[in-house]
């Protein structure tokens, strides 16, 4: 019998194209029956990672709940670009209250559903990184601590993009924002600050915490589906590049999201009840320069007056992530063999 090598449809992400998957494994987006939760016509920028992430996440949540889903939205880009008066691009029930209270509002919605005997109706809360790690942090931690039946999704573009690219507690070190300009001894955002919200979420011992990027949308969908299989508080942190805020080309959004994962700067993993259960390994290791050079917010690190010292510190952060989550298993295995 002759052997035939199968050539997977190569999308550059080591993901297998839908056409080669069984019907059950195909993405929600590939289905003609998807909800289009956030429909076309909204006013997101070209190449917006958040719009992409929200579309995939919510359509997956809709499929996982048989369409019995209510969404609560914090103030921010997603809210503003999706509901310019008198239009809305939401095809699902959607409530926006304030910037810092989406987790608490979601708690209230979930409580109402319990009272009404509609435990089949599930609740998703969503916010950008500002609405999650900064102004919404108190209400989010409260929602986690009470283990309210809410999936909260943070679309992390590492800053306050809606207000004009200011620093948030999710802005990485050295990144230029309007409030961390590239002046002074430490150009850009300073080192040694910021919040790692997935780990903080895990510290609440909630049923499910996961990170994902818009470079691996199949993985994102699967994590939403997994999240919906739990009751209680769940947290999904989605890495969404922002061409406007990062000074990147709008056709580089997916590429940048992939590089964030492949450099180790953004670890992609799942955790249940406070314990990491699954890690997406780095497939094609890349130095941080490859990721940084595509973004104007890091332009001050390169060129004749570049700052290789700062680039090295950023590489250090990536290396620490790789070590913490075991993102390079082959290397780890090799190391352990050498130890023997």
């Amino acid at each position, binding site marked *: 019998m002759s052997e035939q090598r199968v050539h997977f449809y190569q999308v550059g992400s080591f993901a297998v194209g839908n056409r080669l998957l069984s019907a059950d494994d195909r993405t929600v987006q590939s289905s003609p029956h998807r909800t289009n939760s956030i429909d076309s016509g909204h006013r997101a920028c070209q190449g917006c990672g958040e719009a992409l992430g929200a579309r995939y996440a919510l359509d997956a949540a809709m499929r996982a709940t048989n369409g019995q889903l209510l969404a609560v939205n914090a103030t921010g880009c997603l809210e503003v670009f999706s509901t310019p008066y008198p239009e809305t691009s939401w095809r699902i029930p959607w409530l*926006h209250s304030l910037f810092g209270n989406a987790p608490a509002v979601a708690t*209230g919605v979930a*409580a109402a559903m319990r009272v009404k005997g509609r435990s089949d109706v599930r609740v998703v809360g969503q916010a950008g990184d500002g609405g999650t790690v900064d102004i919404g942090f108190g*209400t989010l931690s409260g929602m986690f601590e*009470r283990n309210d039946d809410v999936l909260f999704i943070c679309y992390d573009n590492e800053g306050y993009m809606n207000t004009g690219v200011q620093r948030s507690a999710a802005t990485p070190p050295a990144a230029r924002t309007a409030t961390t300009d590239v002046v002074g001894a430490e150009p850009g955002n300073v080192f040694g600050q910021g919040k790692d919200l997935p780990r903080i979420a895990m510290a609440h011992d909630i049923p499910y915490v996961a990170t994902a990027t818009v470079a691996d949308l199949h993985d994102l969908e699967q994590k939403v589906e997994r999240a919906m299989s739990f009751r209680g508080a769940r947290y999904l942190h989605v890495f969404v590049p922002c061409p406007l805020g990062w000074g990147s080309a709008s056709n580089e959004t997916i590429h940048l999201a992939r590089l964030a994962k492949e450099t180790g700067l953004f670890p992609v993993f799942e955790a249940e009840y406070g314990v990491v259960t699954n890690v997406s390994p780095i497939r094609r290791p890349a130095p941080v320069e490859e990721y940084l050079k595509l973004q104007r917010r890091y332009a001050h690190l390169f060129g004749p007056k570049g700052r290789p010292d700062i680039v090295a510190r950023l590489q250090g952060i990536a290396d620490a992530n790789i070590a913490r989550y075991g993102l390079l298993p082959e290397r780890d295995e090799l190391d352990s063999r050498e130890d023997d």
Partner: protein
Amino acid sequence: MLRQLEGSKAIAETVALCRPEVVCAYPISPQTHIIEAIGVKVKEGSLAPCEYINVESEFAAMSVSIGASAAGARAYTATASQGLLFMIEAVYNAAGLGLPIVMTLANRAIGAPINIWNDHSDAMAVRDSGWIQLFAETNQEAADLHVQAFRLAEELSVPVMVCMDGFILTHAVEGVDLMDQATVDRFLPTYEPRQVLDPDDPVSIGAMVGPEAFEEVRYLAHLRQLDALDYIPVIAEEFAALTGRASGGLIHPYRTEDADTVVVALGSVLGTIKDAVDRLRDGGQRVGVLGIASFRPFPIAAVRDALARAHRVIVVEKAFSLGMGGVLATDVSMATLGSSAVLNTVVAGLGGRPIAQHSIETMIEQAIRGELADLTFLDLDEGVIARERARMARTRRSGPFAENVLRDISQTREDRS
């Protein structure tokens, strides 16, 4: 059934009769006894189906109420003072979204200096938020107002705040006639929202509104408040027919028919003022009292009618606008616009300072003699003020004066002893 009850307990019992579905609680004195008592009922299951959520802040308490109400549940919470300020963004938001949340406000002063006792600074801080604000004179009225509040809120899609004086009412034990479940059910139908989060009928709630429509949206909210001016007396009458009690309504006039001088006030101090007025009436003075039951919407026409005969109007209020003067008095002055009546503002009872009947009597007599200043602070210790003003004048440095005043008062006491 008449029962000897603490005010907070009477509120808890009455809110329970209103069949709340989601109750949010964050403790702050003097509201605590209310939410504690409701918490017991929910936990023991006697209020089922009802969710009781212990949240991490007042901001969350109002936010959870917003979510619950938008999803079609009857939502209730209670707060006071700093708690109200901490949730203020969500307070405005609830009104803007037209959500019929009912909240008890156990009126308390606002710091700094921190003070847990009663005044009306908290309620005044949210008077422009779009909430209906009803003030209770007694625990009986406070309890009754809650039943009316849910009805009012749900008929008009406006949140309602029942204001009751912290400690003076919340912690006072007196006879309260509690309603029975059948009567409350007859008065208060099931909450059926016009718009609700529903997977089978998706709507977007809370969209952005720009300059092209914002003014119209706000004006419509104002008109809805004016509708409430018509509706509040209607439900108060209906309530009276059912219970025989004159709780709620827009205003409570007392001996104003032939009064030359009318004292206007909000809340529990009305009882003291009525006693003072009775005494002065015994002495032949033609004085009356006008209680404002609905502060927002402000019943400007009803107040104008009630004050039409008066030559002198004295507004006694437990709050004021720093750098300006009376808050209630400003509203009352709009009602007396064009009349020749003299208006005095008397700020009293700040931070729990007792308002004594004899002080009220003396003040009214001063006013009748034309000796009362336009703006007076009742029972102010002028010596303390003079000494601190002198200290402040001696140095150009800025700083707080609360601690100086405390030192000064304790020093004066030591000197005396």
